[in-house]
């Protein structure tokens, strides 16, 4: 059997892959989610934004053809962003939850002298990172997860937060961490701290004062011109 299947056309070659144990035929321009639906299989979970790559619902484990040798690792990916390849073996990864909720009340972390000290209290495993790189390899967005964990655990929230700009909360890093650090939720904590403690736009605050003083109101009955001024 040829590697690429039959003749390629505008939609790419026709290839065969195994998805959740089922043999599927698909085009190389189709995403894994598309191939699943095109095969007539029911899709009622592990699906969301269907290709934008922002919801993190369609986590899969992917083994590519020829990667069966020891040491050739299985990769994690988002099925809506991954195109079909010949010989792929794919399985969905069900939603991943952290072992513990790690509760905190963001509004109680309002003192910026002490707020960052609370990070290792809420995430006590974070300083124990053994730098195995598992989270970095698991992240389908290529985020430097391990670096974020290191920065966050020493209170460098402003350096840590932007590293998680692209996080889609797929939680694959949580599953990958042998120390149970919960990087996905740690990333959210530092991001939320940075915004809630230190974003105070003057224009917004001025408008809020005007509204409170009653100098900004809406006249519901106003005559509105057809064309914008």
């Amino acid at each position: 059997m040829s590697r690429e299947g039959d003749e390629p056309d505008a939609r790419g070659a026709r290839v065969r892959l195994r998805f959740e144990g089922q043999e599927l035929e698909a085009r190389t321009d189709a995403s894994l989610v598309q191939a699943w639906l095109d095969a007539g299989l029911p899709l009622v979970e592990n699906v969301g934004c269907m290709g934008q790559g922002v919801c993190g619902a369609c986590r899969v484990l992917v083994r590519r053809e020829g990667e069966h040798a020891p040491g050739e690792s299985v990769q994690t990916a988002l099925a809506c962003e991954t195109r079909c390849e010949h010989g792929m073996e794919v399985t969905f990864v069900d939603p991943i939850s952290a072992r513990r909720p790690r509760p905190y009340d963001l509004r109680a972390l309002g003192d910026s002298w002490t707020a960052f000290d609370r990070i290792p209290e809420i995430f006590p495993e974070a300083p124990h990172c053994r730098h195995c790189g598992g989270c970095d390899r698991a992240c389908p967005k290529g985020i430097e997860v391990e670096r974020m964990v290191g920065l966050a655990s020493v209170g460098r929230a402003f350096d840590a937060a932007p590293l998680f700009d692209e996080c889609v909360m797929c939680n694959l890093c949580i599953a990958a961490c042998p120390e149970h650090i919960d990087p996905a939720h740690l990333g959210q904590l530092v991001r939320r701290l940075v915004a809630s403690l230190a974003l105070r736009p003057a224009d917004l605050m001025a408008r809020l004062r005007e509204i409170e003083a009653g100098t900004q109101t809406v006249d519901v009955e106003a005559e509105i011109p057809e064309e914008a001024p």
Partner: protein
Amino acid sequence: MSAGVPREVALDAWRARRPASPTTAPLDRDALVRRFHPDHDANAMVTLRVGSAAGARCPAELAALLQAGSPVRDVDIAGAPHRETDVLVIGGGGAGCVAALEAARAGARVLVASKLRLGDGNTVMAEGGIQAAVGEDDSLQRHFEDTVRAGRFAADRVLAAALVSDGPAAIRWLIGEGMSFDVEPGTHRMGGRLRRARVGGASAARLLSLRDQTGLEMMRVLREAVRLQPGVEALDGHPALELLTDARGACAGAVLFDRERRRLALVHAGATIVATGGAGRLHLRGFPTSNHYGATADGLALAYRLGAALRELDSFQYHPTGLAAPAGLAGLLVSEAARAAGARLVNGCGERFVDELAPRDVVAAAILRELEEGRGVATRDGALGVFLDTPSLEAETPGVLRDRLVTLCHLADRAGVDPAREPLLVRPTLHYQNGGVAIDPTGRTSVSRLFACGEVAGGIHGRNRLMGNALLELVAFGRRAGVAAAHEARAPRSGPIGVAHLSDWQRAMIAAGLPLDACSPQLFPSYGNFDLAAALTEGVA
């Protein structure tokens, strides 16, 4: 639709004429929209025959769900397990999360039931931003007038006023939850100015954002806040199949489908908030959609069977530039930011045909005219669209793609196109449900103890929504509905609770000569290969 110009021929025409000159053809905007906008396609509309909106026009695909039987019968719920809560929120997208947070903080026990997972919905996909009148050159009144005008004067003015008046406080609330916004370059996060952009139909720069990932940032924060909020329990994989009523006909909770155990689960609630989002996955008139997989109008169907008033059911927003190819990515959005940055739309003959920054309904109608009249670009697989001329934009403003249109480049890469060398093929995509369940400023529907917020609610946007007002709506009305529902839930209830309203509904359906065998809500797109009836039978057996 006509065949169009083969892509290779169209590419030659584009190269020969690039950069294309502005269109000189006279344009009667109203006539264009009336002739080509899908809302005005009389063949696609039917008149509703039963329910509170009987006599109103509605797309056939939606009418089939509104005028349908229930998958739930009296006998089915008799033995089903049930639980109690103060407030039940149906739908875990942006609006549902905001409502749940505020209801819990007002002292209610809250259950949020999601069809998929908490956070799955259209909110996370929003690229553009959120409108709030914070600029010195702007005012609440200007935002109000822009909103009403953009909605073609069909909006409920009291709701529009509530929306814009909540804007600045909504931004403060979001920051308090930990959401970031871009600040004006050169100013500081403390005491600086928010970065503002002006969008089509707005008289001032008012769109606040975090790059082109505002919805992603908002949903990350809201989901985390709900997860940690005491008093809120999230129930994933539990779509609602029917609402429950008490002896007086007030809403008293819902019948959920526990997907994993394949059985019904009843929730008795003092107040119920429908926050199920939009309807893009109904693919009205066969259109592709930019919407989330779960956008199947479930809440509209449920509220309608209970007698809730609906409005502007025939009005939908078609975003002008969805990807037209490849098939697997069709419908995904190419943000308006590309046109705002100067990218032009070019037909199969290499010509521009509309002012690219006209209102969305006008641009969408103009593209559909090109496709219908044979000037579209046709691929070998049968996809039809027009070109979005990103190469000329890049040539005129080197670096613009990489610096400002990150999401576009990411999308183009997956479509196998280098946007600096080749134009993208785009066409209108079903984007937003303008109308929905009629509400008052507290989110109350016409049915007692039933609330609605987010895209499922109607009246705020009239017949056309301003970019950035959807994210504002879900915060403003999510908060209002959450607080009001928490108070409502304390009022004494009048049992017994069940699905007594269904017998009236069935009588009305039979009287109108409508079949009862078709059921709604649909829950998943038609290509989701899901059979609810079979799943229910299997579970019972």
